[in-house]
């Protein structure tokens, strides 16, 4: 009741807050547009341009080679955290990404799905290779030391937790379900949450593929 009264009699603090936020958003949009000197891309997914760091990591790919984010410059990258002993949600996501790749046609050759294992204890490069190749030829499995995987996860404010093991020693890993999309210059551009549609993902990836790396 006290809150209601305060709200009625005061100078609409909520409205003032919204106006302030709108002003900041407008200023931000103008400033960003000024820097890029072009209209922002009409991306449909959650736009994270300028809010997440560039693609960078020090991991091992599924052939056993040490790789960094620079390895994938020039490609549009779809980054996803998962693990191979995940029989349901990870395959669902990867199968949907495979369908998206098919819809991109020849453009898909300039795209890479990076599947980062949040279960490096079980996911060797060889296991990862057979796993990701079962979904799409453009998919690459990445693993590394627990510390290196954690560093990449934290860089994108992602999280994962190893659940308690069952009597036979098997265990599940709860993990963030988002897909991070990077442009050819390695900049974080959009975030696809589980509720995102395949149409929007294909739209945005196509847009990024058709845009020069310096725009």
């Amino acid at each position, binding site marked *: 009741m006290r809150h209601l009264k305060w709200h009625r009699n005061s100078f609409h603090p909520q409205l003032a807050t919204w106006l302030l936020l709108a002003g900041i958003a407008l200023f931000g949009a103008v400033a960003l547009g000024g820097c890029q000197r072009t209209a922002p891309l009409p991306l449909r997914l959650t736009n994270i341009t300028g809010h997440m760091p560039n693609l960078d990591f020090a991991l091992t790919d599924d052939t056993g080679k040490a790789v960094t984010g620079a390895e994938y410059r020039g490609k549009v990258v779809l980054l996803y955290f998962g693990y191979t002993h995940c029989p*349901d*949600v990870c395959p*669902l996501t990867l*199968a949907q990404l495979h369908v998206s790749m098919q819809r991109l046609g020849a453009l898909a050759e300039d795209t890479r799905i990076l599947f980062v294992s949040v279960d490096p204890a079980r996911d060797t490069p060889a296991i990862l290779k057979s*796993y990701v190749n079962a979904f799409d030829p453009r998919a690459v499995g990445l693993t590394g030391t627990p510390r290196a995987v954690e560093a990449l996860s934290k860089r994108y404010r992602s999280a994962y937790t190893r659940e308690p093991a069952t009597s036979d020693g098997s265990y599940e890993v*709860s993990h*963030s379900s988002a897909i991070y999309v990077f442009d050819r210059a390695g900049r974080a551009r959009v975030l696809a*949450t589980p509720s995102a549609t395949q149409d929007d993902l294909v739209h945005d990836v196509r847009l990024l593929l058709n845009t020069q790396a310096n725009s």
Partner: protein
Amino acid sequence: MKALGFGMLLCAALLPGTVYATSAQDVRVSQAWLRILPGALPAAGYAVVQNTGSQPIVLTGARSTIYGEVMLHFSSVAGGTSRMRMVDGMPIPAHGMAHLAPGSYHLMLTRALHPVIPGDHVLLTLSFDDGSTLNTTFIARPANAVDAGPDSVTPPATGTTANAALPGTHGAAQDQD
């Protein structure tokens, strides 16, 4: 002696059917498939389970002669995090249906006695809360399949409700912003 044995067998066969219908008798399964992952990785089982009866039914699990262990699991996405947990049962409402579907209830199959390859037919024995069972053939599909495919042994049931809800589906509206 022979006649008595036959009589007992006849009684045993008729009694449950004439007095009570079992859950399994009210269940129709369609679009049953397994997602096969490479190597020794676990497989997942999906199907549409229809209850034609007037009582709710609970699917409590499944057995297989090929997989050493079959568990009923439930995947969920909450707060942007994917989780999977073992559950005791999947309820199937009276005159309704429930889905074993990606991102929701599903069977997790481990410890295959021999490699299962896409195209194989795998017999699973589904079990229900009244103890009744139902043998169902699941078709093995490749890792990147998104449904039962054209060669499903259990084709879509006629009169399927197209807008049936898929609770907890991976694509369900959550964290839209």
